[in-house]
């Protein structure tokens, strides 16, 4: 399983704060994960369509699209941050 958590407009477009899903075989990286998630529903697809506007953290640390995603990870998906 992986714990997915969503923030800001990613959360709003997908429609949930997060979800726990079994990690499919063949999903090894952040890029793989985003590709697979986008196929899950029209809402997921809409949220993830502009990959340049998507940022990801794996286990609470920023991760690039080539970063590994392992079973048991917490993967957060959100737009570029705007705090401060």
């Amino acid at each position, binding site marked *: 399983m992986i714990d997915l*958590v969503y*923030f*800001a*407009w990613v959360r709003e477009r997908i429609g949930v704060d997060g979800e726990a899903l079994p990690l499919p075989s063949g999903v090894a990286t952040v890029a793989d994960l985003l590709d697979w998630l986008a196929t899950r529903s029209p809402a997921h697809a809409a949220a993830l369509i502009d990959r340049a506007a998507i940022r990801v*953290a794996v286990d*609470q*640390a*920023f991760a690039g699209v080539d970063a590994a995603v392992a079973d048991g990870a*917490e993967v*957060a998906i*959100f*737009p*570029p*941050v*705007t*705090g*401060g």
Partner: protein
Amino acid sequence: MIDVRVQTAPLDPAATIAALSAGRDDVGAVVTFTGFVRADDALIALTLEHYPAMTERALATIAVEADARWPLTGGSVVHRVGRMLPGEAIVTVAVASAHRAAAFNAAAFLMDWLKTQAPFWKAEERAGGTSWVAAKPIDDIAAARWHNA
């Protein structure tokens, strides 16, 4: 040592500053930054969302980084989350050092980092609805200056 905190309660910048200098005779300079909600384009309110588990880790990491880069005698980063009104404080960064250059640089560094690396998101509420604030390229440019410094 830089204290970091996220809270929904209103900020008290004056208390933050006082805490860095009270009872100390080795502090020569305190620099503070306080960010406020502006009523641009008839803004009604600003709501700050964050990613609590990551925020704690990220704030602790940057506090250690600032301490390693400059000889600081103390510091504080307090970021508010939740809904706030125009004129209310969003964030206060305060840094103390023996000398002013370290205090100015560390405060600017912490703010540039908060703008680009800390997991907070702003939503603006206006009469026509609520919209998420877009990240500004100028903030990435400001943050990049520290990479080779």
